[in-house]
């Protein structure tokens, strides 16, 4: 079933995942990264210069994923392009059947390896949601008609764990009202904050309009957790979790177990529609996680 179908019907929990960055190697490189995760996910995020590092573009990867039989979610960030370019990307990708858009404000250029770059932010995240939604209704921001209107499903991201914590629910409401049909929540190592955020969304009725997909992150070591804590904007990994993984005999397995626990907790919350998975391990853990959580009983895993 398509992502839209799953969001409309909520017939089962949804699984989406982040696609790794690609820098070369043609479609074969995309296929090689896609094959291990494709059976386990409903849709895959084609990222847009993640963490402010240049890579093969969101549009190209979204089209490649579509070509290779996956359902792409094209991330679009506000950092690198003005409103003309953002609209052109969405409309252009839609020509190739890319329907799902995830609108983000984006990390600042200073988070990347080219901090001297000019930052754009001509639109902000909520504005981009409204603009993309309007494109799907057959109109550019200028008012110029788009015929036929592209079929679009617009979503966004919200961080349930960054201050101001109470206001994050308001922000989810703002994005939902602007047209977001799903929210892939930022990686969150604070189960209490996620629970409070989701409960707030349920109270406001946001979860019925907009599918809430908490993100969990597969890491291999205490070092990668420390890196996320220190270097990824908006992510706080509590000392307790970092210590637990560092002290474990098998830290790779321990960090997997942390992710499994966070996933189980997220899925136990009323109002959660599924999971978004960021995989920094690339060792088959994504399939293991989805299987152990019982998320895709329709997938039969065959061992070669």
């Amino acid at each position, binding site marked *: 079933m398509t992502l839209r179908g799953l969001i409309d019907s909520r017939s089962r929990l949804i699984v989406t995942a982040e696609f790794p960055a690609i820098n070369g190697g043609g479609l074969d490189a995309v296929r090689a990264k896609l094959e291990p995760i494709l059976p386990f996910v409903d849709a895959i995020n084609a990222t847009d210069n993640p963490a402010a590092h240049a890579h093969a573009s969101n549009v190209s990867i979204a089209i490649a994923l579509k070509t290779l039989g996956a359902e792409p979610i094209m991330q679009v960030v506000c950092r690198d392009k003005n409103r003309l370019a953002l609209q052109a990307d969405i409309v252009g990708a839609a020509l190739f059947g890319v329907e799902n858009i995830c609108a983000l404000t984006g990390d600042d250029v*200073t988070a990347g390896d080219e901090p001297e770059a000019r930052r754009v932010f001509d639109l902000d995240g909520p504005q981009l949601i*409204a603009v993309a939604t309007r494109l799907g209704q057959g*109109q550019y921001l200028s008012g110029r008609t788009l015929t036929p209107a592209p079929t679009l499903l617009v979503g966004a991201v919200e961080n349930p764990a960054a201050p101001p914590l109470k206001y994050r629910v308001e922000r989810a409401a703002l994005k939902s009202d602007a047209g977001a049909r799903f929210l892939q929540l930022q990686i969150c190592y604070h189960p209490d904050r996620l629970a409070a955020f989701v409960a707030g969304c349920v109270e406001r009725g946001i979860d019925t309009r907009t599918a809430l997909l908490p993100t969990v992150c597969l890491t291999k070591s205490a070092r990668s957790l420390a890196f996320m804590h220190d270097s990824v904007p908006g992510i706080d990994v509590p000392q307790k979790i970092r210590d637990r993984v560092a002290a474990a005999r098998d830290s790779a397995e321990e960090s997997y177990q942390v992710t499994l626990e966070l996933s189980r907790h997220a899925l136990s919350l009323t109002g959660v529609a599924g999971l978004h998975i960021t995989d920094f391990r690339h060792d088959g853990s994504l399939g293991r996680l989805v299987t152990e959580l019982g998320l895709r009983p329709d997938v039969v895993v065959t061992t070669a």
Partner: protein
Amino acid sequence: MQLLPLVEHAVKGRVWDCRMCGQCVLHATGMTCPMTCPKTLRNGPCGGVREDGRCEVEPEMECVWLKAERRSHSVVNPDSWEREFAHLRPPVDNRLRGTASWANLFTGRDRQTPAGWTRSGTSELPSDDRLEVSLGEVDDLDSLDQGFHARTPLA
């Protein structure tokens, strides 16, 4: 009218670090200028706010939107300002940069938005008639096949 932007900047620059975007929303942002956010966000904090409430880009300062959100609840603000905080604000009109928002407020110029902008993405499209008038844009595909769109007055 050239004097007005100077006067406005002299006052608001000192008090609010005003950046003269020409479409002032201070009343809706707890009297905190959103253009002082390094990402110039008009609709609330990004997801990068640090654990201690400091800015992702400039860690020496508090997140502009954290401050704005706190101030929006101030008892000295009218209730309407608090409510307005939650509204979706339109994209910046870059043509207004450097002009006096006081004049733009008076003429209503600061509330003009592109015809395709709506507060809610789920609302209905305006009718074609209204669109034509508001846009004044003519697409004659036979003569303008290069993707060129002429802006001509509709009389």
